[in-house]
């Protein structure tokens, strides 16, 4: 009897469930009319802040994963002599003050007296010299560019003397990348890439690492009472797993999230929340591998592709409007060095097709793919990670309209980063905060060890290279701006890479929990949110 009724029952249940789903979740609950928004500043101190976790590697200079979140967590624990703020100005850190001699060939740094390592040992000039030497024999995850340094020596326990080969306006910025590690712990470490012993996260920074789980992607940092600066405003910083950001935030499990414009209305009008908006230089870029596909060395082919990619459409669809379409001159329009007078390549399919035809790709073979008289097809493999798979999909659609075939290959982020670094792709979408890098278009010999920016494979332009090194050495701001404007013009003319768009960020938090979030940075885990440096 029951057996016969079972199927009928199951269907009935299904229908009920469906009905429930439709009615249950249909209505938007809004009860935000209780009280008018009072102009209040939220709490500037907090005992604990929880943020969405994820594994970004063990937070020391050798073991974090080469992406922003990894390096920012490492920076909570480790300090450098000087730091550069969001405006690019150099600020004191472990070095309280410094001066250079007249010809700019020697710098003297006075270290902060009384600074201590997390394990209670005093911090001295010895540690700085050791860190410098160590970084030379074992390059850390983020390459330190101190090639201009001739000699670094300790004058006394709290004084460092640095001699340069030639005067270099970027010396201090380079020095900001050198994280100081304790000599007494690292002295005998010969395999730093695998050094994750308990002492491996002993630094001088505002936070000490209390717990890290690679498997769960969780971190726990506690404010260090040994910190040389002002006490951090947040005592405990925890990164915990959160599968659905918004849900976890609404339930108070995590304290700040990024949102999309679609859910903005949910938080905007509610006085319990505060939404902060940022225009960022975090950009998605399309890279050409001219080594693997030499036809991409043709400027006109690259230009045709730029004309055929509707960057505005990408912004509207993939980012739901919350982005700034990419500038062919690479720099964000908000950058003070931005040059608006560069070729802009508005979306123009006809122009793209004309250019392609001019290159001999006239016939359309099966499936509407263009080919030249030799039968070489305009067909490319596009490497994308999961986060940019839809972006790849849309580019594929757009390029198909002008007869260029794109096959999208989606891999996970770490694989994409790895293949990008090794040049194992034809076209590649990569996105990072290094959205304004002009350096990656040059062939200047220097360590490029970040996954954020890479070398533009196979692209060589000596004029660009020399211009780039000239602007790097230029000390006069006005002259540097001119050089940068010229650089942008050349880059926009040549389009060795396409900047697709710069992402805007909407972040939401509860002022009643903690309101010390910085206007300067859109990264929740950035040190500046919790510590005054």
């Amino acid at each position: 009897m029951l057996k016969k009724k079972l199927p009928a029952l199951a269907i009935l249940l299904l229908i009920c469930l469906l009905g429930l789903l439709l009615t249950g979740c249909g209505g938007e609950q809004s009860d935000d009319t209780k009280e008018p928004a009072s102009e209040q500043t939220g709490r500037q101190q907090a005992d604990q802040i929880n943020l969405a976790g994820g594994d970004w590697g063990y937070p020391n200079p050798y073991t974090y994963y080469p992406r922003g979140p990894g390096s920012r967590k490492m920076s909570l624990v480790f300090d450098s002599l000087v730091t550069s703020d969001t405006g690019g100005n150099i600020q004191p850190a472990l070095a309280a003050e410094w001066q250079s001699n007249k010809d700019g060939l020697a710098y003297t740094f006075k270290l902060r007296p009384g600074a201590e390592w997390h394990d209670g040992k005093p911090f001295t000039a010895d540690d700085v010299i050791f860190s410098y030497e160590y970084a030379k024999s074992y390059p850390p995850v983020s390459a330190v560019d101190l090639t201009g340094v001739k000699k670094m020596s300790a004058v006394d326990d709290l004084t460092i003397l640095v001699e340069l080969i030639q005067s270099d306006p970027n010396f201090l910025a380079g020095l900001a990348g050198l994280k100081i590690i304790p000599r007494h712990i690292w002295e005998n470490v010969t395999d730093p890439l695998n050094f994750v012993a308990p002492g491996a996260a002993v630094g001088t920074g505002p936070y000490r690492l209390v717990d890290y789980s690679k498997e769960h992607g969780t971190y726990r940092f506690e404010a260090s009472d040994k910190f040389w600066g002002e006490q951090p405003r947040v005592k405990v910083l925890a990164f915990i797993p959160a599968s659905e950001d918004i849900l976890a935030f609404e339930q108070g499990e995590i304290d700040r999230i990024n949102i999309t414009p679609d859910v903005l209305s949910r938080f905007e009008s509610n006085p319990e929340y505060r939404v902060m908006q940022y225009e960022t230089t975090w950009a998605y870029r399309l890279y050409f591998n001219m080594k693997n596909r030499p036809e991409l060395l043709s400027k006109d082919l690259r230009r045709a592709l730029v004309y055929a990619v509707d960057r505005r459409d990408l912004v509207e669809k993939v980012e739901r409007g919350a982005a700034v379409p990419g500038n062919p001159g690479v720099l964000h329009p908000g950058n003070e060095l931005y040059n608006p007078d560069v070729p802009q390549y508005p979306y123009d399919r006809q122009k793209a097709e004309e250019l392609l035809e001019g290159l001999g790709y006239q016939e359309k073979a099966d499936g509407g793919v263009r080919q030249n008289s030799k039968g070489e097809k305009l067909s490319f493999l596009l490497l994308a990670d999961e986060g940019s798979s839809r972006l790849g999909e849309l580019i594929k659609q757009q390029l198909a309209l002008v007869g260029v075939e794109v096959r999208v290959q989606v891999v996970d982020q770490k694989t994409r980063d790895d293949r990008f670094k090794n040049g194992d792709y034809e076209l590649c979408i990569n996105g990072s905060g290094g959205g304004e890098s002009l350096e990656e278009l040059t062939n200047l010999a220097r360590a490029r060890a970040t996954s954020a920016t890479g070398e533009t494979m196979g692209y060589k332009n000596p004029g660009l290279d020399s211009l780039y090194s000239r602007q790097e050495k230029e000390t006069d701001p006005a002259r540097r701006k001119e050089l940068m404007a010229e650089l942008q013009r050349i880059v926009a003319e040549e389009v060795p890479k396409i900047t697709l768009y710069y992402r805007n960020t909407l972040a939401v938090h509860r002022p009643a929990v903690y309101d010390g979030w910085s206007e300067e940075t859109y990264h929740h885990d950035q040190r500046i949110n919790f510590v005054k440096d």
Partner: protein
Amino acid sequence: MKNIPAQPVKMIKWFHDFSWSGKLSAAVILAILLLAVFAPGLSIHPHNTSTGAPLQPPGGKHLLGTDELGVDLWAQICYGARVSLLVGLGTAFLAALGGGLVGIIAGYLGGWPDKFIMRLIDIMIVLPDFPLLIVLAAFLGPSLLNIIVVLALFSWVFPARITRSQVLALKEQSYIKSAETYGAGAWYLMWKHFLPEVFPLVAVNMIRLTGRAIVSEAGLSFLGLGDPTSKSWGLIIHHATSFKGIYFTDFWKWWLLYPWLALTMMVTALAFMSRELERIADPRLGGRRFSVH
């Protein structure tokens, strides 16, 4: 369904024996089959290029709305049916063929080949298949063929067990014994006697395997391990669920709901269908036996 012998009268008879849920399931399966076959005709819009504004609600130009790239959802579901059916039927066919052969060999030969095959089947049954599927799919790379082969690799054990037990019973029948004494070879017996006997049961099992394969493919696609170029239902669900904050917008009401509904309907229908046929085919469940000769 196409595996049921093409004797119209008998088919109608069986259909008459179906309970109403069986009939409904048959109708659903038939409808989805038609959807898959006539996908190009049924959808006005292309399934792989955007034809409208992103995230349009159902109604108007787009019957079931559009996804975030502005691609028509109805077209995607029509074409998705093709992928799902291809994976389902392909896997079931491969598994039934392979499993059936292995089962017959094990049952007929007996001795150590039988023991070996049975232990192998035991191991395969104990292995948790989905985690292994994930590993294999990630390892072999995303392609539809790989998915079908991998799914078949994990599905052949069920038909193999069924056929083996059938063959073991048949082997002792007197007509087989007499055929053997007249000099019938292994192949002859297989084709003439074993296969026709075990076919109905395997066919029923195939339907169940089809459902399983469709769900597994959807699961893999949902996890992002499917073939990104073949727009299956699982992939639509994957894209919808990876859209940030979809549950806090209205978009899930079409973008997620309809592919989910299609998938659920298909799998439920297949499950009921296999129950129904099992009832008819297996005398122990109170139905009457059907066979092809």
